[in-house]
């Protein structure tokens, strides 16, 4: 039986949107709007979608960088948003976040040695000496050398900066690591090195990953389960292999068909390309948020938002065509 490590229930994160000066009508940006999923220990759970779909906001809300508007984040049985601050901090030590742009997330005026010691000083009560030992060990684990300790972040290449970001979080022995676009902006050969490192570290430190990416081929390789997000909601969720071999939600179908692939020629396959662009988060369409771009839309889609419903094969889909409304209570 697989052990549950993280359970998200109906999580919502709304931001106050732009409204006119002195205006009473506050518009809410529903960046994450009622998302539920479960992650088992040892999983690599992928979150995919295009920019603005809420995947990074979701990651940050899970960790508590953003305070959730509603819903629960249950990590190893404890509902984090309901805990007092100091307790929550204690638990969050076990969840770590790797930022998208490591160059920007490392302090440019600090040496690598200081950057790597800081989390240990904040979260543990180790002596200076054991902190130093720990830092050396971590550097070695991510493939950097001791002489790197006195350098500054800008002296590192993009790939090395990512290694640093990893060393920094591994110091704390996290159990769940949220990787936010961990390879964006890297060349393919560097990306390959970093992805390999993720796989090795996962096994060595018994990590569970939440892997946020818009790069579908990376998700396909790294994740065993995934959720496809569109405009703040999950539209399809299930085993990676099943979704990639037969996507069922109309949006997933289009998204997967759009992956540029070797040997595929533009215009040879059925044209699934979408018209229009992802909706403005301040002004999502009513009903199913995908309907204005959907080729399979029905009348009901414009008014009623479909719920995410589980099918027999462990796959959940939010689409009126696949799960007609009658089955919903």
């Amino acid at each position, binding site marked *: 039986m697989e052990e549950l490590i993280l359970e998200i229930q109906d999580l919502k994160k709304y931001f106050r949107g732009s409204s006119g000066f002195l205006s009473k009508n506050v518009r809410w940006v529903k960046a994450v709007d009622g998302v539920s999923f479960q992650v088992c220990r040892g999983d690599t759970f992928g979150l995919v979608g295009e920019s603005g779909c809420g995947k990074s906001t979701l990651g940050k809300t899970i960790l508590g960088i953003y305070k959730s508007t509603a819903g629960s984040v249950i990590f190893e049985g404890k509902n984090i948003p309901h805990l007092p601050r100091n307790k929550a901090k204690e638990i969050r030590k076990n969840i770590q976040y790797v930022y998208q742009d490591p160059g920007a997330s490392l302090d440019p005026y600090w040496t690598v040695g200081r950057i790597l010691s800081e989390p240990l000083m904040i979260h543990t009560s180790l002596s200076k000496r054991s902190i130093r030992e720990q830092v050396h060990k971590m550097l070695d684990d991510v493939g950097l050398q001791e002489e790197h300790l006195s350098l500054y972040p800008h002296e590192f290449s993009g790939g090395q900066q990512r290694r640093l970001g990893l060393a920094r979080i591994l110091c704390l022995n996290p159990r769940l690591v949220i990787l936010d676009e961990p390879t964006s902006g890297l060349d393919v*050969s560097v990306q390959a090195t970093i992805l390999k490192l993720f796989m090795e570290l996962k096994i060595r430190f018994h990590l569970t990953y939440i892997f946020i990416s818009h790069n579908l081929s990376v998700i396909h390789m790294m994740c065993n389960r995934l959720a496809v997000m569109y405009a703040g909601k999950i539209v399809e969720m299930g085993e990676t292999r099943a979704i990639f071999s037969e996507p069922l939600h109309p949006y997933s179908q289009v998204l997967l068909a759009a992956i540029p692939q070797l040997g595929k020629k533009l215009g040879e396959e059925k044209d699934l390309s979408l018209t229009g662009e992802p909706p403005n988060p301040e002004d999502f369409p009513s009903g199913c948020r995908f309907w204005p771009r959907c080729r399979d839309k029905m009348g009901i889609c414009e008014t009623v938002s479909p719920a995410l419903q589980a099918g027999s094969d462990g796959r959940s889909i939010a689409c009126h065509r696949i799960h007609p409304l009658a089955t919903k209570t």
Partner: protein
Amino acid sequence: MDSNQKELLLEVSNLTVHFHTDRGVVKALDAAELRVKRGEIVGLIGESGCGKTTMARSVLRVLPPMARIESGAISFAGEDLLAMEEKNLNSFIRGKKITLIPQDPFNSLNPVFSVGTQIRDILKWKGESQDSNQRNEAKLWEMLGQVQIPPLENQLQKYPYQFSGGQRQRIMIAMALLPSPDLVIADEPTTALDVTVEAQILRLMTSLVRGRGISVLFITHDLGVASEVCERIVVMYAGQDMEDGPADILFSEPRHPYTKELLGSLPNPEGRIQDIPGEVPSLIHPPSGCRFHPRCPNVIEVCPRQKPERAELAAGHWVRCFNPVR
């Protein structure tokens, strides 16, 4: 072979470009070669710093001040671009016979002028005095329709920030095609876009250039995109052109070890990812001979001593390697 009979439009030969920086001389291009035929879409691929953009900028002669073209020749439709006077380049080549679709649609439109002003400027600047305003307007509306921007005057009065990324890139495509160029240089035109929008833009761009017989030099680091769009691919590494061949053959049977390794490092569902050992070299002190030799699995004794010549291994398939993949 139909494509072999097409007329050569752009020929870059033995181009060496150095950047004279404070830290030393960056040998950005090392006797690189590139050929684009009329009506052909050629992909220029490689990792960052391999010289793709330097190549494109050399063709337009818009290199930064610290760059110097040390040797080589660039011939475009029979004219020697390196010998051409600046004045003539501006009146006949830049933005006329050769246009550019830039990487970032967010920064390449002027934020303080309406889109209409910027597009109309192109038609004016094109300086075809015999073209009346009316004819120019007709062309403009036709082009807007083709790039699927609603051809309405109120669209043209909008400012760049009022358009989405995809729409802005459509506007850039319209601006690149309006002067009826012979060659369009597309520098990573879709990297800033989401996959579904990227697919739309690629379809649009290729159908428009194919319909007009325009050649495209398509610069990208995305091998998948290159494979879908281009007829021929040139692979660059550290300032040297390594392999040059038809897209379908080059990707299925790469002959240069670098191309093979690069393809092997793409993420794949089986999870058997292969990284290339080592790092991209510094171009201030590039490796001698073939610049890939320190990372190459096929390295032989001659590789560090000598730069390999381009060898045609099959019709239209050139490789610069002493010990190519068999």
